[in-house]
């Protein structure tokens, strides 16, 4: 009995000792961890240091020396923005930059958290048209009056438009990325087509596609793997019909008309009637995947972003080096039409570091960075004047097509209700492809359901 009591006492004391030792150990471990970097004026959270130390005091040549900026971006920007443009920014301003990145598909989820918690841990945020329209009013800083007018005046019209939502500007564009037409000249030759001449109209595109399809291979691939990619596919075809999908005040959807029908019948034709579009497209959500199939030599032509040309010319990324050609997208009623995929950066409205954030926005549209965007990354610059630069003309032949493409419509129809509207479009487009709805039935449904999405949003907004 006595032994039992002794064991019991020992057990409880041991527990106390263990708990105490555990607590001390935990504190010791925490103390061994790296001390967090000093918070930026905006309250920036610790993040990967993208630049060398910049602790020197401010001077005329480095006006932000000793200051810190936290950039929130996407992984696909790391190789260019983080590794090239950010060090250049530090060199110019003296500011240290902390870099945070997530996958491109995860940006929205993170922004939802930013808004909900009024998070100021990042000062500058990546954006694109759809994101900009969605988060402009609640997350991005309105820079309409604070940005230098001469910088805005120098932008390409499409890039300026993409960062403007209901007449307010919420960021600066890094590029004028928009889809162009890309084809494999070897496959054209093998199909008996002129390898130097792309289709001039949608009818020719379908005709060429028929010749490029067969033996289990499809001439082209359009992405329909999720709401965004499916909507982009519809828009990229619709934009060459001459129609306007949304009213300028974003309150009225107009899709159930001759223009909508032209686009939907075109989709029906390539997937169902002519069977020239790879049905696997319904599972592909990323243009990156689309580009990989083209670069493997398995696809005759597609609507591609210009930097895909650079990848097609890179030996370790492509099996068709020297065979890719670029032109403008063959249109349905207009000669052409496209969809923009341009990206840029905006200032977090909750950041207390907005002055430095603005300096970064000005940095990305500087001639030096814009030339790097064009020649190093292969993306069309957002500053109009850079297209004429001799180096750019020599190193980026695909921009000739981009410049031509900019003459035709390329709106992305970004809006705060983009995701819901896109989901309605892709659901009905898939119904047309799997034969459960005719193009007209699908449009009638999109018009009704899509308008309801819009009405619901504005009811909530009011």
């Amino acid at each position, binding site marked *: 009995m006595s032994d039992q009591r002794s064991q019991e006492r020992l057990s*409880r004391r041991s527990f106390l000792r263990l708990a105490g030792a555990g607590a001390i150990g935990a504190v010791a471990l925490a103390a061994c961890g790296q001390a967090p970097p000093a918070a930026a004026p905006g309250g920036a959270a610790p993040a990967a240091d993208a630049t060398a130390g910049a602790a020197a005091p401010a001077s005329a040549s480095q006006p932000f020396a000793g200051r810190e900026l936290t950039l929130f971006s996407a992984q696909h920007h790391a190789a260019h923005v983080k590794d090239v443009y950010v060090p250049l920014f530090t060199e110019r301003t003296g500011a240290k930059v902390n870099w945070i990145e997530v996958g491109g598909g995860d940006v929205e*989820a993170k922004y*939802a958290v930013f808004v909900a918690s009024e998070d100021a841990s990042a000062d500058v945020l990546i954006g694109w048209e759809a994101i900009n329209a969605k988060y402009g009013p*609640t997350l991005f800083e309105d820079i309409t009056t604070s940005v230098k007018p001469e910088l805005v005046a120098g932008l390409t019209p499409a890039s300026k438009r993409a960062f403007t939502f209901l007449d307010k500007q919420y960021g600066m564009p890094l590029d004028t990325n928009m889809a162009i037409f890309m084809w494999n000249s070897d496959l054209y030759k093998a199909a008996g087509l002129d390898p130097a001449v792309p289709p001039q109209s949608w009818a020719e595109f379908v005709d060429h596609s028929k010749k490029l399809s067969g033996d289990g291979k499809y001439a082209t691939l359009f992405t329909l*793997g999720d709401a965004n990619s499916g909507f982009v596919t519809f828009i990229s075809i619709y934009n060459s019909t001459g129609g306007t999908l949304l009213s300028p005040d974003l309150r009225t959807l107009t899709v159930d008309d001759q223009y909508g029908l032209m686009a939907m019948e075109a989709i029906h034709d390539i997937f169902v009637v002519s069977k020239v579009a790879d049905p696997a497209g*319904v*599972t592909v959500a990323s243009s990156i995947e689309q580009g990989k*199939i083209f670069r493997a030599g398995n696809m005759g032509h597609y609507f591609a972003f210009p930097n895909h040309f650079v990848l097609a010319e890179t030996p370790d990324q492509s099996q068709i080096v020297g065979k890719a050609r670029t032109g403008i997208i063959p249109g349905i009623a207009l000669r052409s039409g496209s969809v923009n995929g341009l990206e840029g950066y905006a200032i977090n409205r909750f950041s207390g570091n907005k002055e430095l954030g603005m300096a970064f926005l000005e940095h990305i549209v500087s001639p030096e960075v814009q030339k790097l965007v064009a020649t190093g990354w292969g993306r069309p610059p957002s500053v109009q004047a850079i297209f004429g630069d001799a180096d750019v003309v020599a190193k980026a032949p695909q921009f000739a097509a981009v410049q031509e493409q900019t003459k035709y419509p390329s709106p992305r129809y970004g809006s705060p209700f983009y995701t819901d509207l896109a989901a309605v479009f892709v*659901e009905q487009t898939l119904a047309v492809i799997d034969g459960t709805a005719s193009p007209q039935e699908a449009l009638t449904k999109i018009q009704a359901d899509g308008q309801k999405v819009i009405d619901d949003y504005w009811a909530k*907004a009011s």
Partner: protein
Amino acid sequence: MRTTLTERTEPRPSLSQRLDRMGEARFGLLLLIPTALVLLVFLALPLAYAAAMSLFRIELTVSPAWRWAGPGNYISLLGERAVRESLARTLAFAALTVGSSVSLALGAALLLNEPFRGRGFARVLVLLPWAVAPVVAGVLWRYLFHSNYGLVNALLYQAGLIPAYRVWFDSAPVAILIAALATAWKTLPFLALIILARLQSIPEALYRAARMDGAGAVARFRHVTLPQLRGILIFAVVMQTIVALQSFDLIFTLTRGGPGQGTVLLSYLVFINAFERLSLGTAAAMAALLTLLIVLLGGLTPLLIARRPRRERQDG
């Protein structure tokens, strides 16, 4: 003065002495405090916060402000077509997942219960899917059924069962079926393990008695094994139902909810509402309904187990 003397002779007990004198029940409660605190901070508070959110309209595309909605979010959910379709899809997915996983696990457990050469190795092999993270499982199955490079296409094509490689995820029913099989594959080891443990505890005497009564293998399985496994099978069904209703990560990596909305289960719809539509109030209401559904189905376990078959009750 006397009081002072008493205080001197009986000093205040130390913390460890007080612990020693503490009753078992109180000491047990004391030990529970850290866990209770963790549960309070990481479970109860977020749950309460989410429950509160579900009563407000929070539209982050408009403003971060919370506007009182009362039961409005719940009422609008019940009338939403996407929710009804997603609920039906979720129940179908759960039925497929439960049916396939429990029957496969039962088969695997019966097999592993039989003596054969390499049984130990086979038991380890069956456990492997359990060690795979759901996200990895999603990617793995996505590539298995890839339209251009998938192993399934290659095998079926080589065997002459399909004329050409096909796209598996272009049809919602097929995509749901593949997602259910992937989930079943992932959870099969756990179920097989608990069924195997129960199988090994069935008294051999029951089988001997059955043999003496002239029962063959099928009859022994039907009249001895299955009744003995009843409890564990009900547990497996309910556990698997809960897993199926909670499925998100595997679906996210396997189909991303596609084609269209074809594999958007309720849990995925919560994600869409919270992180794509930015309607936090609606998402919270939807999550509350999903939790209620899971709790209701989970609560059926003890009821089902307690409800013994009539014949068994009469006998016993």
